[in-house]
């Protein structure tokens, strides 16, 4: 009696376990568009009605993806009659490999992958290539020579951040706030952009002093990392940095924060210490941070119009579905906004840190300061209410966009 009960329980557990791994029930909606139900088909559209574009997200919970990237991809795909399906890996590498398997089983013709880790994703990419499914590396690099890399120029983002801050504060004491140490954007690409804008040269020349070095090695020990890009952690770290600066009688003249979630923590720390607001950088164009730019608490926010990136990826996916060769892939003129579009509309070679050469479309980011806040309004990124919350429109300091 006992053994048969155990056997039944074990069987149920196995069934339950396999059910749960097959359909990871994570928070965001996993949507399926009805096949062959186009909303508007342009006269020149080719027969893409049976193209299934599958997207593997790594962290759908971050606001940007649901708000901008997903609509960009989905609308482009569905407008041409394709099908959009997706999965979210919730920051887990193992989960992402399972997700790619699931998407392939669900009939993916093209895969768009936002890799949690550039190398851990390779088994999934290999499986896709075995099934002759083209792979697009979306926003994050995949170290595979056959994946099409569509991203914003992350080094360019860093360069834009540092260019804006260095122009405002050419000399003085800087604080560097970096993101998660495991993210190559935080450890490699963005600091590379900072140096391209001249940060290292200025430090070497003695014009700029970095207050929060954790050692002597550049750039690894320059600045403070923030695990998981967490706002609270950035806030606590920044408070300690402000205290240390006050103790040594040093003023903080500028802060280079790698993204908006860390910049938000920095602003909170500055307010807690009544420190006034030295020029501060950020990235992503999060609503709260754009509001801070309007309020004068953040100086520059490098905005990547992710909807344009989604459109580019969606269009590339449809083209690959048709069987077009990656090497000759060309973006339609006018698909994405000209200020954002890459220099060349044909896929270009890109040298990866791992030594591979991939085909790529690298879009340009837009640095947003108080002066050009109207761009985010015009792009439909935020509403005026959200942007100008707490701004006194009558005051002389108020940005044009809020008046």
């Amino acid at each position, binding site marked *: 009696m006992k053994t048969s009960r155990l056997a039944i329980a074990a069987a149920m557990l196995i069934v339950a376990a396999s059910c749960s791994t097959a359909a990871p029930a*994570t*928070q*965001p909606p996993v949507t399926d568009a009805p096949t062959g139900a186009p909303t508007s088909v342009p006269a020149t559209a080719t027969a893409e009605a049976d193209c299934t574009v599958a997207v593997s997200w790594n962290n759908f*919970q*971050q*606001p940007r993806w*649901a*708000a901008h990237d997903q609509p960009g991809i989905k609308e482009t795909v569905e407008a041409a009659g394709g099908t959009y399906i997706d999965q979210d890996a919730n920051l887990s590498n193992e989960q992402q490999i399972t997700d790619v398997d699931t998407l392939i089983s669900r009939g993916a013709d093209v895969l768009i992958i936002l890799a949690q880790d550039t190398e851990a994703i390779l088994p999934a990419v290999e499986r896709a290539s075995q099934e002759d499914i083209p792979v697009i590396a979306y926003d994050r690099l995949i170290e595979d020579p056959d994946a099409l890399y569509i991203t914003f120029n992350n080094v360019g983002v860093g360069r834009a951040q540092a260019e804006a801050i260095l122009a405002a504060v050419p000399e003085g004491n800087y604080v560097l706030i970096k993101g998660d*140490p495991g993210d190559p954007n935080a450890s490699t690409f963005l600091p590379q952009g900072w140096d391209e804008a001249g940060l290292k040269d200025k430090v070497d020349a003695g014009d700029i002093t970095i207050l*929060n*070095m*954790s050692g002597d090695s550049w750039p690894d*020990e320059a600045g*403070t*990392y*923030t*695990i*998981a890009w*967490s*706002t*609270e*952690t950035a*806030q*606590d*770290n920044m*408070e*300690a*940095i402000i*205290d*240390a600066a*006050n*103790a*040594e009688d040093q003023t903080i003249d500028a802060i280079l924060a790698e993204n908006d*979630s860390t910049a*938000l*923590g920095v602003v*909170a720390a500055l*307010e*807690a*210490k*009544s*420190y*006034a607001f030295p020029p501060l950088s950020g990235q992503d164009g*999060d*609503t*709260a*941070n754009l*509001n*801070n730019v309007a309020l004068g608490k953040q100086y520059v926010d490098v905005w990547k119009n992710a909807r344009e990136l989604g459109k580019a990826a969606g269009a590339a996916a449809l083209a690959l579905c048709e069987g077009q060769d990656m090497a000759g892939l060309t973006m339609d003129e006018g698909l994405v906004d000209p200020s954002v579009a890459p220099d060349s509309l044909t896929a270009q070679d890109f040298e990866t840190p791992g030594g591979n050469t991939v085909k790529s479309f690298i879009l340009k980011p837009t640095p947003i300061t108080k002066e050009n806040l109207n761009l985010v309004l015009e792009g439909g990124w935020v509403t005026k209410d959200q942007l100008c*919350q*707490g701004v006194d429109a009558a005051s002389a300091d108020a940005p044009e966009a809020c008046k």
Partner: protein
Amino acid sequence: MTQIAESTRADIPPQAPTRGGIGDLLRQTEINFRLFGMLVALGVILVTFHVWSGGTFLRPENMMSLAVQASGIAVISTGMVLVIVSRNIDLSVGSIVGIVAMTYAVLMTDILPHVVGLGVDFPFRWLIALVLGVGLGVGIGALQGFIIAYIGVPSFIVTLGGLLSIRGVVWYFSRGAAVTGLDTDFRLIGGGAEGSIGGPTTWLVAAAASLAIIGLLYYNRRRRRRYGFPLRPMWAEVLLACLGVLFVLGLAWVANNNFWPRGAAEQYARANNIEIPAGGLFIPSGFPYPVVIVIAVTLIMTWVATRRRFGRYVYAYGGNPDAAELAGINTRWTIMKTFMLIGGLCAIAGAIAAARLNGATLDIGLSYELYVIAAAVIGGTSFAGGIGTIPGAVLGAFVMQAIAYGLSYVGVNSPGQNVVAGLVLILAVGFDTWNRRRGS
């Protein structure tokens, strides 16, 4: 009747025979050595960082930063002591903090002004949000507590499920975006120059606390005499009184030597037509509100744990669940109450976190459960149940934060901080376990 009265007055039982020596003297003071040891450890940590930083660490501003950063964890850890003492665990505290903080933010920026129609000028609008948030925290605690106590699902599982699902729900509030722009009065809860009670009030609080310490010692001595318990020697009472008062006054002195930043002071002076003296205007900040909240919560929780039936029931259940049940204690209701209590404390910690951030993000409160449990355990709470003190847990929270803040201050990077925090936890609990084993 009179016989007993006479005997208690006349025959005060003699104190244990003294053999001299420091060990004996210390034992007579009846100081809780574990707690005292932790205070010493905290002191050692602070001094180490002071030396490491080249002599700049021990400044009032830094100590206040440290205290404010530790306050959220400290508040929750007082509740975690009762949960662990009663042989349960609550892994969902971080997620409860997250959902309540996001609730405060959404209430104050969206629902109260736009849906209910209470504008920014509505008096005590922040208080309405606060009460609703605490209600939500207690409610979630009640739900979890019900499933644990009445349905019998292990607390590890229920709160693990809570950890995952509650954090997931937070996403739906704002589709992951940060919600900022809270009421100015609410933001005072987060500390800072204006979020402090000011110089005079701090001295008042310190004076009241000193009187309370002396009063408690006196009252305690009288009760012992009345019931025939051995008394502490008079010199021990005086010593304890002096130490306690000095400690409290010292804290107040540190708080009052933390001055408003010059910019804020000058702004205040201009707004109130005060002349700025030659050396600058120094406005003492005093205790920040988060620290006041921690002190108040610690006192109330200690009182609940030691002087209220509920607290004694929790310890009784933790020490021997069957005996407690047989003795007639409504153990299920007691357990459910511990989870409701910690839910409410999470809401308070969430208020501090949201006020400090002037808003809420998707990951606010992330990983709190680890630090809260570590604080309680470092403070002497045992997973076997039945043992643990509230002041110990609060001290444990400050020890952990002292390490985190100190490492940040001297420039050790975040991964390094995690390495040290983990090692300290193992060391502290290992040392305590070894000590207990040695003693028994």
